[in-house]
């Protein structure tokens, strides 16, 4: 049974290569996009920490910024 699944009557190399290529491409793209998202979130957090107190209050009043801040460490400070 296991041998049948692995070798697939001589087609195992092509079938497994296709599935492995597909799944590794998924991992690759997922981690690239995740890395980009984390980078932008960190950049946002860093910029926010350097804002003056008036600007911080102004930003916190805006809905979008509140939602963004909820996903960064800045909000917990």
């Amino acid at each position, binding site marked *: 049974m296991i041998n049948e699944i692995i070798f697939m009557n001589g087609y195992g190399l092509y079938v497994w290569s296709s599935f492995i290529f597909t799944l590794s491409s998924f991992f690759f*793209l997922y981690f690239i996009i995740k890395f980009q998202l984390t980078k932008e979130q960190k950049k946002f957090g860093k910029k926010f920490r350097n804002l003056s107190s008036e600007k911080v209050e102004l930003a916190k009043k805006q809905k979008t910024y509140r939602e963004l801040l909820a996903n960064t460490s800045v909000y917990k400070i």
Partner: protein
Amino acid sequence: MLNYFNPNNTLLIINKLKKFVLALFIIVLLLGLIEALVLSPEDYKQGDSVRIMYVHVPSAWISLGIFSLISILSFGILILKNKNFSIIAKSLAPSGLLFNIIALVTGSLWGIPTWGTWWAWDARITSMLLLVIFYLMFILSWRITDDNDKAIKISSYIAIIGLINIPIVKFSVDWWSTLHQPASVNLLKDTTIHSSMLLPLGIMTAAFALFSLLIFLMKYNTELIKIKNKGLDRL
């Protein structure tokens, strides 16, 4: 209606939706892999090599679907001048390109045992390669200029021109004599594929669609934060 696409309303929904889509994708993918690699039968002619279909066909469908959507959104960008459409189109492109590449690579791997060659310059394969080029041009158009409005216009024109290629990809197997087989799954005509193979194909298509949705949500989130980063400078 356009208010639903307002970034201010969608950000909170995106964050909640991402985790749900990721969990659902993993479940559906595992189910699809078991069906595709273990439970589905081998083909009477192609043997076990037919299992490549379960990654090749959904990838091709989704890459075509995403490019069509990007093209439709591009019409919206140029006619309605809605800039949020451009963020949506930009966020859809990475998964579309990935699925296009997967379709080409898995198609080549399928071609070796069935056709005796990994590549042929036939209409279907060449038009799919052309689609990769359109995807690349669309993605690169955002990088060639710092002027955002110019980038939106260039990318929209590329997507609209690329739309001409979509029916060529779809009907190439009917219009020309190609090495590639005609479509086995049809919406308007009879489907020539057995239900025992149609089930894993459907599950894998659902899994791949969920993956595209996940990548879209993450990329869209990234693009919104980029905009808000610029907005912080203007506060």
